[in-house]
């Protein structure tokens, strides 16, 4: 199996202990190119930790992460498997961008500057070229008119759409979404979800931790249900959510639909 035919991202036996808490207890799944994978589960089930392990913001204690068939996060050093140095992870992170629950825009930069920052500073691309692309990305998230606004002058929904544009500005192969609508008022969720739907229909590979069951059901190609640090159930969201086979998922589906 060559790198291009296989899954874009493959996770096997991922384990992570934070303090005394075993947050991840052996997680396995794959993400194919162009696929939208939703991760659901009760709070404390390890979803956000799992997402941060995928771009190595958090180093897993054990397990393997394969990106386009090649292991990331570990290096072979004289026959010994060693954690990679932070600076060797930077290139990988530019290929798998992340959008956060609390937006985390840089408050001292305008929307446009937020979007331009990484391509100019990290990728060292020419500023004029990046500016044109950043303006196009703001247009795509329907925020051209807010290019000069600072984060504190924007609504939560606008900030989150700028954050998505910022993530896209790295021209990533995949996007990670960490409960990106959870901090938003109901009337602002829609504008963010519609941007995500656009991306999905364009074939962007996405891994999304989400509580938006409508999004999971209608947009995700596959859903992974996490329970106590493990993948409890996985499959097509229409089947899995309609006919949960485990008692845990039955309880979870009841709790989010009530």
């Amino acid at each position, binding site marked *: 199996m060559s790198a291009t035919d296989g899954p874009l991202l493959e996770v096997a036996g991922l384990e992570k202990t934070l303090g005394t808490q075993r947050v991840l207890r052996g997680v396995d799944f794959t993400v194919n190119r162009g696929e939208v994978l939703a991760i659901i589960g009760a709070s404390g089930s390890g979803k956000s930790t799992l997402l941060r392990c995928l*771009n190595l*913001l958090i180093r897993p204690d054990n397990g393997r992460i394969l990106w386009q068939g090649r292991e990331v996060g570990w290096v072979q050093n004289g026959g010994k498997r060693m954690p990679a140095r*932070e*600076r060797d992870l*930077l*290139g990988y*992170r*530019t290929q798998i*961008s*992340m959008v*956060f629950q*609390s937006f*985390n*825009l*840089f*408050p*001292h930069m305008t929307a446009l500057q937020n979007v331009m*920052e*990484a391509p100019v*500073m*990290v*990728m060292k691309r020419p500023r004029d070229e990046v500016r044109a692309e950043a303006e196009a990305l703001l247009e795509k998230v329907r925020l051209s008119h807010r290019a000069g606004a*600072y984060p*504190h*002058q924007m609504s939560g929904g606008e900030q989150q759409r700028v954050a998505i544009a*910022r993530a896209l500005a*790295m021209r990533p192969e995949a996007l990670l979404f960490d409960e990106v609508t959870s901090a938003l008022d109901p009337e602002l969720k829609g504008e963010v979800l519609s941007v995500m739907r656009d991306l999905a229909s364009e074939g962007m590979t996405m891994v999304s931790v989400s509580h938006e069951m409508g999004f999971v059901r209608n947009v995700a190609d596959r859903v992974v249900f996490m329970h106590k640090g493990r993948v409890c159930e996985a499959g097509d969201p229409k089947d899995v959510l309609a006919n949960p086979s485990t008692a845990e998922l039955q309880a979870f589906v009841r709790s989010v639909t009530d």
Partner: protein
Amino acid sequence: MNWNVVTDNAGLLLEAFGTTLWIAGATIVLSVVLAFPLAVMRDGPIRGLRILSAVFSWVMRATPALTLLFLTYFGLPQVGIYLAAVPAAIAGLTLSATGYNMEYIRAGLRAVPSTQYEAARALGMPFPMILRRVIVPQAIRTIMPPLTSNLTLVMKGSSLAGMVAVTELTGAGMALISRTYQPFEILIVIGLAYLILNGALIWLQHRVENWLSLPGQG
């Protein structure tokens, strides 16, 4: 009151003013420049550097500035390092001021939410770039008021240099007083001089704060 004592000795007082400006200015610039890397090291990822900067901060803040000043002027010659009075005073005062500055800078760096580091790391930024582009520009707003406040103390603390044979404002004033027995006029003029020096420092603080402020955020 007889202001002749001031006009007659204007040359001496002006020279002392210049010396104070030079010592305090050099101490302020050096101590801020040195404090930044120490503040970063203090909470940084390398254990050895964390300990080193913690010990530095403890020693410099726990020791009287005057003791440090005596150490650089009277102590260093004993181990073969001879500094003239002014450089020795600048060195001693800088050591003391750096210990305090680094704590104000450190507090400001820590006040930036950790989610900002996370967002920057997720964009593939290396640590020095995160500091320069993301953390410091935000921290500087928090740092400015207490740091400037400390720098006004440093400005006034430069009078300690008078204790190691530097003719700065306070030292020159004391010498004049013991010669003329007219403390009131002389102390008023010296007080005004410090007022001008620190006034300029505080004005500079406001300029920087204005320059850093974001539209609509005051």
